[in-house]
């Protein structure tokens, strides 16, 4: 069985989520190769060798410079044909979701999304995905090859094994409609503080904090717990907190040991970025907020009363 793992990269580094999927694919077995698409990516591709993959395909050229999905569908179609891959795996992201679905339509191939684990059963790939608000765990399969899967963020950790990868370049000319959309501008903020993706404890704030100044409550509690501060899309869009701290579908995916949500309703777009956290605590004045459906410990109450007291008690206990 042969598997391709799409290795998404940003700023010269392969994304942690892609490396996690690669680690899982290698553990499951069969022939595993990586794919890196971009402009001047030979070095990035070779860097995947340290994570245990021996073969990495590249599709390289100016048409693939901007992180847009449609040229990457052309690239993956060509690599899938060249390698004879039966399985094509992606770590979920804004970019990868669009590539995976475009590729599924191009190849008339099955796509299973929100996958949290993969296995080989009778020589065939199967996958698991939670469904219906995580109330049921579904084992899914494919009825033809290639089998395409989008893996839920935070499902697997990268495993650094050491090693080197042979890089094979595949020449691809994108289709005309694939290059019709153009990246006009990218405003990418680099994080200033420690990355929320590596924090063991995260205190996240949403609209319920009331004002940008309300984030002091989150910062104070995070400081007491030795954690990092994160934010929802709504408050980042409103300019209350920096982009680099955003958790959710269009932000970071995090899986700390403890996630404390202050004034966050828990909309699906936020949930997808933090649902693999070890323990989820929610404090919200709205007893009907969806976050209480998946919080381990929920407090219905006033943040301005509960959060400072919580910070005091944590400090006292830590002495």
């Amino acid at each position: 069985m042969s598997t391709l793992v799409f290795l998404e990269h940003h700023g010269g580094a392969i994304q942690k989520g892609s490396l996690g999927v690669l680690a899982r694919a290698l553990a499951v077995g069969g022939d595993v190769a990586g794919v890196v698409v971009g402009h001047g990516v030979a070095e990035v591709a070779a860097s995947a060798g340290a994570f245990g993959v021996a073969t990495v395909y590249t599709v390289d050229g100016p048409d693939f410079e901007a992180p847009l999905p449609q040229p990457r569908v052309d690239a993956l179609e060509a690599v899938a044909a060249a390698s004879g891959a039966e399985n094509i795996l992606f770590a979920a992201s804004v970019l990868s979701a669009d590539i995976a679905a475009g590729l599924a339509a191009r190849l008339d191939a099955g796509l299973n999304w929100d996958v949290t684990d993969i296995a080989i059963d009778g020589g065939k790939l199967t996958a698991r995905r939670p469904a219906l608000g995580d109330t049921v765990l579904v084992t899914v399969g494919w009825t033809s090859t290639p089998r395409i899967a989008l893996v839920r963020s935070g499902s697997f950790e990268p495993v650094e094994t050491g090693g080197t990868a042979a890089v094979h370049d595949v020449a691809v000319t994108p289709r005309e409609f694939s290059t019709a959309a153009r990246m006009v501008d990218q405003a990418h903020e680099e994080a200033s503080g420690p990355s929320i993706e590596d924090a063991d404890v995260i205190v996240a704030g949403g609209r319920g904090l009331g004002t940008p100044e309300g984030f002091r409550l989150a910062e104070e509690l995070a400081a007491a717990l030795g954690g990092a501060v994160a934010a929802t899309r709504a408050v980042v869009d409103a300019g209350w907190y920096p982009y680099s701290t955003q958790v959710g579908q269009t932000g970071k995916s995090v899986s700390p040991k403890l996630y404390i949500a202050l004034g966050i309703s828990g909309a699906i777009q936020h949930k997808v970025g933090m649902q693999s956290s070890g323990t989820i605590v929610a404090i919200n004045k709205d007893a009907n907020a969806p976050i209480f459906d998946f919080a381990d410990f929920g407090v219905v109450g006033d943040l301005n009363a509960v959060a400072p007291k919580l910070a005091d008690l944590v400090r006292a206990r830590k002495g």
Partner: protein
Amino acid sequence: MKIAVCVKQVPDTGPARKLDPVTNRLDRSGEGALNATDVNAVEEALRIKEAHGGEVVVVSFGPTRALDSLRKALAMGADRAVLISDEAAAGSDLVATSYALAKGLERESADLVLFGQQASDSDGAVLWAAVAERLRRPLVSQVAGLEIDGASVTGKRQTEFGYDVISAPLPAVVAVSDAINEPRYPSLKGIMGAKSKPTETLSLADIGAEADRVGASGSRTTVLELAPPPAKGDQIKIEDDGSAAEQLVEWLAGRKLL
């Protein structure tokens, strides 16, 4: 400007959604509603029409009863509704759905095809990319701000790394995020008027779709087994009576999280 908005009827049962134990498909027997984030796409289409003129048509693929939910879009101000519905279409997965929807959209030849952010029943957030591929049109997704100037669209969007601005010539496919606008409520006049707006229900034959590429025979994914999720442990929810912070700290300490 002709705008087609792809919308879906989803079960209006909130967390009580369940799977049919025989077919392993979603039980759609209860009340239906227009998928919440599709309403943002309808709203955006109406705003574009108000600024640039044209027509807004809502297009859906689903059981005949989905027409009830399409009326909400008509009540908001959409001009007409097209429902692709066929008994042979039940159980369609992404490849099958994108094929049928693209066939229906080809018939409309819209300048702009809009999608909402995510289906609340399947949690799917990918259909637009498959449909753009089938239509061979440029795609801009996760758009939180959209501008149209005659021959092109420009979308501002969020990714994991910051803001992108992407431009594409029309005709194009655009998926909007729910951050793009605050949808209007249908007015009483809109609700009354919706009853007399044109709706069409089309079979797979009507749209020229090959029957074996839709439904279970056109699908490439399958459900093998259902199981309860791993136990998450007991969930605790308390109202703050002044002691919530103490209770929470004790609980965190008990789980060695401090």
